[in-house]
């Protein structure tokens, strides 16, 4: 028995290392007496690197494993762990350089962000509803704390409070949906629930099942900040410290989509759901939601001046693009009950690919925002006047990230968008593709407003001093890596394609 448990432990090494990392971060804070926080940051960075190493090793081993009966370690989970892990690595790296963190007692931050990631890791690799909820709450609650981390700042506290209120409400609705579903199906296992749903959707339980699924959808949509459950997003993104904002925008959203995809897969595919007459309506509902989300996000982003707020709205828009793929998924299973669409390119493929693209370009864009804030203390578009000539490298990379966010070649963002377009057009949802296409034009306007201020305007105040010294050069190296990756995978995206395809059942 014990040997079996120890053997199972092998598959959750990344989580174990994360847990050790959390403890180390806490202890180093105590030992150092809250003095030199960079050391805690570097320890966390090393832990994250180790986590990535174990994830990669498990990916190389392959196979699907059931650990302790509640954790599933399969290629899908490992891919999402890899995405979240890379996100975490970059975020921790940013945090080490983050100016506002240059003070005492900030070591808890690393413990919190590692805990949050632990939540994500379990979230994407479980098929047990209860455990799923626990993991989700672990992610959520630590996120609330992280959002309010700059205690002295009113904005930060406001962000945390808003996040808690909205988060608690949507969690409540979702868990209510879970409980209805559990009460009927009598099982916490997602696949068994799927079988129940498949058997009874047309029967007397039909209405109850639909209600519970809609409630669960509300919870998921809150997590990915889809319209109309996005209200928390801009305030939280603006108020939270920038590394936290990056984490929420990238890792948390990835987790949300990982959750949706796994739920969809387990409940609708593994359960053998005959959704022929049902998928079309869901596809339409999700399609409309996707269109509304991206349009709302893009239109609202136009008037934003604060960079973090602007990127918050842009991330809402991106959630809309991603939802497009989910809508196409339902349209596809309506066809023949499988989600391999006729092109042989799954709709889920497109979503996961876009998530990876989103990871790269958003990490990059937030990185530049943080860099400029660190160096020049500027965080609004208006204040960016002429900065492009002062920090040419960082700002040139910004242009690459903006191109990618807009979805223009030769960047990975374009490929992601194209794959989503292929997915929806293949399902005959031309209107959705058209809405999304025109949305990119709107997006161009506000993204390139940033480029305009960076490069077209003359600097108002000459001689703003660059702060931070030579160490910030390392930061630019990270931006360079992300920028080149954005370009490289925009020209040759075969490797990502293969990784994604290998991870999907």
């Amino acid at each position, binding site marked *: 028995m014990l040997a079996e448990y120890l053997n199972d432990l092998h598959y959750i090494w990344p989580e174990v290392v994360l847990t050790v990392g959390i403890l180390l971060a806490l202890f180093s804070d105590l030992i150092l007496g809250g003095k030199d926080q960079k050391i805690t940051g570097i320890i966390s960075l090393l832990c994250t690197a180790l986590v990535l190493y174990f994830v990669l090793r498990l990916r190389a081993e392959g196979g699907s494993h059931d650990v302790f009966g509640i954790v599933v370690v399969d290629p899908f989970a490992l891919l999402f762990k890899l995405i979240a892990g890379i996100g975490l690595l970059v975020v921790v790296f940013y945090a080490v350089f983050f100016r506002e963190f240059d003070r005492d007692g900030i070591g808890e931050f690393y413990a919190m962000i590692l805990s949050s990631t632990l939540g994500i890791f379990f979230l994407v690799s479980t098929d047990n509803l209860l455990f799923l909820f626990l993991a989700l709450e672990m992610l959520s609650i630590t996120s609330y704390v992280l959002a309010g981390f700059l205690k002295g700042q009113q904005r930060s506290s406001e962000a945390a409070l808003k996040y808690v209120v909205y988060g608690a409400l949507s969690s409540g609705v979702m868990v209510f949906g879970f409980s209805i579903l559990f009460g009927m199906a009598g099982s916490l296992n997602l696949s068994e629930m799927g079988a129940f749903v498949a058997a009874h959707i047309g029967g007397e339980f039909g209405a109850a099942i639909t209600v519970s699924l809609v409630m669960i959808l509300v919870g998921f949509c809150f997590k990915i900040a889809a319209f109309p459950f996005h209200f928390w997003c801009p305030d939280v993104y603006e108020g939270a410290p920038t590394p936290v904002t990056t984490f929420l925008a990238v890792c948390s959203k990835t987790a949300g989509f990982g959750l949706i995809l796994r739920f969809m897969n387990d409940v609708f595919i593994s359960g053998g759901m005959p959704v022929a007459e049902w998928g079309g309506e869901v596809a339409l509902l999700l399609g409309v939601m996707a269109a509304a989300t991206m349009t709302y996000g893009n239109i609202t982003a136009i008037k934003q001046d604060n960079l973090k707020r602007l990127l918050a709205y842009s991330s809402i828009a991106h959630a809309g693009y991603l939802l497009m793929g989910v809508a196409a998924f339902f349209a596809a299973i309506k066809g023949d009950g499988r989600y391999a669409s006729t*092109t*042989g*390119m799954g709709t889920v493929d497109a979503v996961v690919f876009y998530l990876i693209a989103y990871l790269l370009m958003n990490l990059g864009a937030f990185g530049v925002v943080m860099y400029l804030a660190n160096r020049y203390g500027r965080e609004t578009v208006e204040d960016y006047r002429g900065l492009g*000539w002062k920090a040419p490298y960082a700002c040139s990379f910004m*242009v690459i990230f903006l*191109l990618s966010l807009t979805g*223009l*070649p*030769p960047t990975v963002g*374009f490929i992601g968008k*194209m794959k989503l*377009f*292929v997915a929806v*057009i*293949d399902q*005959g949802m*031309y209107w959705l*593709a*058209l809405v999304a*296409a*025109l949305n*990119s*034009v709107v997006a*161009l*306007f506000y993204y*390139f*407003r940033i*480029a*305009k201020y960076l*490069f*077209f305007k*003359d600097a108002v105040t000459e001689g703003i001093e660059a702060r931070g010294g030579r160490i910030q050069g390392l930061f630019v190296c990270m931006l360079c890596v992300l920028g080149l990756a954005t370009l490289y995978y925009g020209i*040759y*995206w*075969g490797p990502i*394609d293969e990784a994604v*395809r290998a991870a999907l059942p």
Partner: protein
Amino acid sequence: MDPTGISQVAVGTGDGIPFLTLLFLVPVLGMLVTLFIPKDKNEVIKTVAAIATGIPLLIACYLWINFDYSNTAMHWVEKVSWIKSFNIEYHVGIDGLSIPLVFLTCLLLFIAVFSSWNIDKLKGGAKGYFMLLLLLEVGIVGVFISLDFFLFYVFWEIMLLPMYFLIGIWGGPRREYAAIKFFLYTLVGSVLMLVAMIALYLTAEPHTFNILTLTELGRNGQLSGDNLVNGGLLLGMQFSKWIWMFFFIGFAIKVPVFPFHTWLPDAHVEAPTAISVILAGILLKLGAYGIFRINFGIFPEATRYFADFLAVLGMINIVYGALVAMAQTDFKKLVAYSSVSHMGYVLLGAAAFTDAGMIGANLQLFNHGTSSAMLFLLVGVIYDRAHHRDINGFGGLASRMPRYMGFAIVGIFASLGLPGLAGFVSEALCLLGAWEVYPLLTVISLSGLIVTAAFFLWTIQRIFLGPLNEKYKDMPDADGREIFCLVPLAFLCVLLGVFPYLLIDWMWPSLQNLLSFLQ
């Protein structure tokens, strides 16, 4: 030859030298080299830019000379698998439709480098400017040589970014507005094109982005969308016609076709001289090239369906562009609107599907490329000296700037279609071709020709003739560098006016092939 007239067999492979790849690879290398040159070494940067645009020009000359125009197949084809899961290939080649434009691109980019030789005296410096200029060349040349739709699209979009920054940083007073307007307009067209491109890709069985294969399928009627739900009928119009429409809007914005032309005067006027030259000389041609290669090539049936519509748009462009140009007092704006008018001939001539019309349209693309480029260079010369472009603000310059006036006369007369110069041949052929099919539209369009002659002659009168404006009595004549830029263009204007077959022979077989499916 196969029944669709599209042979995918390569001719003139260039003994293993990838000439077409080099056409855009050399500028890319030039960019990378420039990146590592310190930004105060202006002379080095400019020399690198001149070399990086000069080599493609030499290659283009080589291709021109060795082009086997009796063969309608693609020349110097290179084909490598790129992304297997999407069946995307790196596939380039040129035929009679694209070789004149490739040559024009390389020539104008080379000239653009010299015409912006003094850019280092402005804010922003030479380094960024020339890197963007080289990137622009990559995009433009790439579009003309791409035979894979995906590749085509990537190059098409790559062009936008340098254009945006070149106008936005080095442009005139309203540069920010003009830059974003240009970007937004073009992007609307591009995204519609993207949607259409993907729909086309998914309709073709097996799915492919290969333009030659798509052309073959399209000509066999296999892309009409019959295999789709509802027989491909979407909102009462056939699938292929929708696709045609989307592509057309994408290209029409670039041409620009009325009513999508409003970005053009802004962009032209605000852009620095060299960029205006490229805009008018080549960027407008991209739209027309797209219409010929994609709309005419892949959808002959839909093109026939929309032919009348095209001809009417052409007529509107000619007359409207000329009338608006007449009302301008800004020299640059006048030239910009005259471009709108001149591009109308392309549409009108092509829409008739006659031999003369088709030749005229394609000849016009090249000839307008040289004459409008010349006019924009001339505007730049005078603007550098007087710092304004108000036509009424000059007068009597003929006595001060005889050399300058000589070139201006050639450029303007080539543009308004004086017999013996290039513009005459192409415009006459367009109208001749259109007359057979659309006599009424042709007659109306002729009024545009008269208006064009009127405003150009009036311009000459106001700038060069009359009493000398005392303010400009010390105005220096065009210097050596400026003449160096103008001479090749003036030479081409005269040469192609006297020997138009130097161009027609190269294009004719390919055009004939295109026409055979339209008539």
